């Protein structure tokens, strides 16, 4: 008996090649997308979980709390806390520090710049990384020790275990290889480079930091150096420990530098919103879209299999008349559906394997499809596939098998519930499509906005050199033909990371950004004052106490300082409380400044930093001593020549480092990479959604046109023209798109406005985008179905009527 059913299945599959092909292909695409997003999410959720004991290992990240602004987090922390934490808290078992620094490594002919981690000798006690050679526990005990990973060992020594060999560090310090570790997962760890050197070395970052702290004390500003990792005792209660750590930090710093150490579990670092804003929501969005695509694919599949099944009503009728019971028929249809799903799964798994490397490269992720090591993945795939199969087979299995043979054999066409359900599914699918198109559009707009409009500065052909503001070098740069202007600023010009927790005259606490600039910079960046005058060469203000002079502030500062308008602020004294104000910042720099000066000009709000953050009130003051960036505006032509000329000037500064320069445009591109990638990924998904939607519609139009063959024949016999029929068929597919819009508009509007609210500065949702998405969906629909509809509408009426 089963052979008979199996033959029916196979013949049916062959007879309906179009439906079968579309259904299987669509489902394969959907399963593949779901599988890939699942793998990507898994890899993001399991970062650093390969390190044994990660559950009890935490990083102590610095958190600064500017008044009236969300906390600012940094992975690094003041270096002396490591000892303090170990000493004060018995439930912290071990503490270690790791400080990254770019160095030059050389062995024989091979020399390259690498980022190296200076690590306390006990680092590998907390982070027992997979070892290839040597003993990690003792590896960092000697001051000249270096630990490489496998590929670095191969790169410099051509073999896996060059124990006892020597590498030259920065051309000065010999380092001995004491151990080799396995390569760590790419994009799967916070110890990306895999090169560790002993922090005991006198020239190491850690020793330098310790010395700095000794010299400067800890009471003035926070200086960050290296990351602090700690392992808590098994019985430790984290919330309690966090509270005690906060209390400890508060006891170390004066109250005007409110801050704490945030304990973040090793595997959760990359998801911590304060450090990686948007990562968490990006994961959620990825998961949601993966699920949507899978849902769309399932809808296509379910629709096609029910449409196909309806045509087999006669088979059901005959089989029942011959005594088949409902159960066997249900099993037959479910079995068929599972067979299709199995085929699709095999295709999806192969597709996923093939495309995973590209997906990883694109999303900067380290997803692996290691089902041979993790058979649970296979289990999940099988469970998922069976679920989809049952879902898709359920309608035919339970509805078709319930047909009474009398009705079926009498030939009454099946206009039963199936059609309504199918229409509902099509509407759902169209709304997914429309939602995806809207989302892709909004994300794209926001991306353009973030990189261009929100910036509000002229970043075009702006070269930035990281260098102290050396007057001879500056003058030499100005003399290079093709250079339009050269001005200095502090690093804060780019990242806005220097601010004070000040107080207004009336005592209100207020965080104010302090950005050191030469006033000529404003003109260079095309920023015009809204009030007052900026005299580039004139007396510039200074954050240092010995000067009383002039500052530029932004419009937010005008408002927060309580001036009625920018014009009112001009000539006023900056209304911050008298007395020395602590300047809290992240870079090692003099701390403790008084701001006493008057306001020379007000500039519009602008930020070169990410749009995720609100622009803080900012005071721009000139300062020769704290300049860290040189902005060089180039004219349009001969850029390579100009760059070469600038590079030739560099050695004269006497710096041992090679020149570190970049174009602002590239920097911004990088800054907005995540938004860009998000936009592109959504674009890909929107195209996938379109593909699936058209597949579904194609199959459906074939199915309905077939179902309506008789009707078409009758109408033609009554004198309907081909165009009448065509219009009728196309309208049939226009309706679900319009209905879907009603569903998709409010839903996507709600979700996207929440997404946009994650940005301090964002575009507004525009109605035309919603209309355009509907139009596009309509276009896709009509293009997809019109071919088939045209074919059907043109057919001779006799052919249709003979069907009876």
């Amino acid at each position, binding site marked *: 008996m089963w052979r008979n059913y199996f033959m029916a299945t196979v013949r049916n599959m062959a007879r309906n090649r179009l439906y079968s092909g579309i259904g299987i292909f669509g489902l394969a695409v959907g399963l593949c997308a779901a599988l890939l997003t699942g793998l990507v999410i898994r890899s993001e959720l399991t970062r650093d979980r390969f390190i044994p004991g990660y559950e009890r290992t935490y990083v102590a990240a610095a958190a600064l709390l500017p008044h009236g602004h969300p906390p600012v987090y940094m992975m690094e922390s003041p270096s002396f806390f490591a000892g303090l934490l170990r000493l004060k808290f018995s439930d912290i078992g071990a503490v270690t520090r790791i400080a990254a620094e770019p160095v030059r490594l050389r062995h024989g002919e091979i020399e390259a710049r690498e980022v190296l981690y200076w690590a306390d000798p006990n680092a590998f006690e907390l982070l027992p990384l997979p070892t290839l050679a040597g003993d990690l526990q003792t590896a960092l005990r000697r001051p000249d020790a270096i630990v490489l990973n496998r590929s670095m060992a191969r790169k410099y020594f051509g073999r896996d275990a060059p124990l006892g060999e020597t590498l030259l560090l920065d051309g000065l310090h010999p380092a001995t290889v004491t151990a080799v570790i396995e390569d760590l997962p790419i994009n799967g760890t916070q110890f990306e480079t895999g090169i560790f050197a002993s922090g005991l070395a006198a020239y190491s970052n850690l020793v330098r930091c310790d010395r700095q702290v000794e010299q400067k004390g800890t009471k003035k500003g926070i200086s960050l150096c290296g990351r602090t990792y700690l392992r808590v005792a098994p019985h430790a209660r984290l919330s309690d420990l966090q509270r005690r750590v906060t209390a400890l930090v508060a006891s170390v710093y004066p109250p005007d530098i409110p801050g704490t150490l945030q304990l973040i579990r090793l595997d959760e670092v990359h998801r911590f919103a304060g450090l990686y804003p948007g990562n968490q929501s990006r994961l959620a969005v990825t998961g949601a879209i993966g699920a949507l695509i899978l849902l769309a694919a399932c809808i296509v599949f379910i629709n096609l299999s029910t449409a196909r099944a309806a045509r087999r009503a006669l088979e059901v009728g005959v089989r029942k008349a011959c005594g088949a019971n409902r159960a066997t028929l249900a099993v037959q249809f479910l079995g068929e559906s599972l067979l299709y799903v199995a085929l699709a799964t095999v295709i999806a798994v192969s597709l996923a394997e093939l495309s995973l490397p590209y997906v990883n490269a694109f999303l900067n992720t380290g997803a692996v499809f290691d089902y041979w090591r993790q058979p649970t993945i296979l289990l999940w795939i099988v469970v998922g596939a069976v679920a989809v199969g049952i879902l898709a087979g359920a309608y035919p299995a339970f509805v078709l098998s319930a047909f009474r043979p009398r009705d079926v054999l009498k030939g009454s066409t099946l*206009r039963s519930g199936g059609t309504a359900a199918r229409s509902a599914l099509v509407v759902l699918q169209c709304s997914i499509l429309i939602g995806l198109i809207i989302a892709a559009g909004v994300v794209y707009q926001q991306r353009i906005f973030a990189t261009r409009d929100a910036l509000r500065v002229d970043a075009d052909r702006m070269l930035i050199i990281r260098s102290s503001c050396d007057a001879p070098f500056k003058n030499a740069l100005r003399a290079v033909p093709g250079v339009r202007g050269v001005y200095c600023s502090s690093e804060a010009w780019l990242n806005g990371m220097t601010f004070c927790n000040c107080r207004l005259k009336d005592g209100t606490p207020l965080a104010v950004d302090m950005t050191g600039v030469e006033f000529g910079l404003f003109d260079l960046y095309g920023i015009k004052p809204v009030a007052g005058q900026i005299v580039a060469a004139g007396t510039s203000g200074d954050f240092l106490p010995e000067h009383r002079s002039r500052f530029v502030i932004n419009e937010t500062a005008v408002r927060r300082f309580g001036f009625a308008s920018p014009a009112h602020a001009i000539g006023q004294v900056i209304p911050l409380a008298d007395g020395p104000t602590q300047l809290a910042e992240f870079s090692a720099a003099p701390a403790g400044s008084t701001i006493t000066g008057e306001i020379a000009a007000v500039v519009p709000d602008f930020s070169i930093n990410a749009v995720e953050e609100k622009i803080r009130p900012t005071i721009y003051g000139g300062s020769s001593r704290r300049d860290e960036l040189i902005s060089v505006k180039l004219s349009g032509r001969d850029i390579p020549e100009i760059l070469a000329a600038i590079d030739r000037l560099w050695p004269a500064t006497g710096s041992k480092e090679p020149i570190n320069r970049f174009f602002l445009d590239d920097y911004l591109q990088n800054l907005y990479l995540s938004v860009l990638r998000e936009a592109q990924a959504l674009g890909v998904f929107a195209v996938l959604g379109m593909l699936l939607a058209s597949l579904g519609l194609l199959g459906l139009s074939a199915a309905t046109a077939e179902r309506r063959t008789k*009707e078409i*024949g009758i109408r033609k016999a*009554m004198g309907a023209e081909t165009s009448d029929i065509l219009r009728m068929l196309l309208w049939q597919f226009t309706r679900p798109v319009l209905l879907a819009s009603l569903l998709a508009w409010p839903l996507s509007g709600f979700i996207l406005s929440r997404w946009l609210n994650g940005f301090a500065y964002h575009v507004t949702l525009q109605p035309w985008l919603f209309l355009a998405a509907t139009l596009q969906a309509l276009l896709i629909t009509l293009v997809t179905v019109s071919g088939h509809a045209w074919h059907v509408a043109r057919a*001779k009426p006799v052919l249709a009527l003979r069907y*009876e």
Partner: protein
Amino acid sequence: MLKLEQISKTYRTPDVETRALDAVSLDVAAGEFVAIMGPSGCGKSTLLNILGLLDSPSSGRYEFFGEQVAGASERRLTALRRGAVGFIFQSFNLIDDLSVAENVEVALIYRGASSAERKRRVAEALERVNVAHRARHLPQQLSGGQQQRVAIARALVANPKLILADEPTGNLDTANGDDVMSLLTGVSRAGTTVIMVTHSLAYAACAQRTVKLLDGSVVAETRLAA
């Protein structure tokens, strides 16, 4: 007004060639009631389809109300058919998704009648075939005889000059069949040309003229004396 000359129709499938009609010549005058008879597969439906412009002959000439239509375009055939021909089928061929009234209305909507006009004529036609009380039902909710009467209403509603009926009583019992025949005879009396395929000698007797087909050819013709 209908003039077939040497009409042939051949169906080609990859392996067989079926000659459904073989040099059929036939004249039908205005207002005539013609019955077509013959064994199954002899080409009756094919002939009717060609007469109703639903299909084109493979060869031969066909004059439809004075216009030569063999080889005319599909578009032209549609235009000629529209309003001029009403069809009645053995299996009713009602559209399942439309109500009785809507089914009847289909015969009018492609001819540009206004909505009010259509409503009026549909109501009239349903009244005429005695199913007005079922106007809002779906076809499945009617008996076979009622369905066929709806189909007749649909054929009549546009006041066509020609009505083609392919075994209109084939699926009906005697009582319902008689009803249908009396409707058709009435239509014929009113001056409409009716061509009907039937297997029943009794019903063929209602016609003024009977054409006998065998294997695609006309083998006999009988005329009832007027």
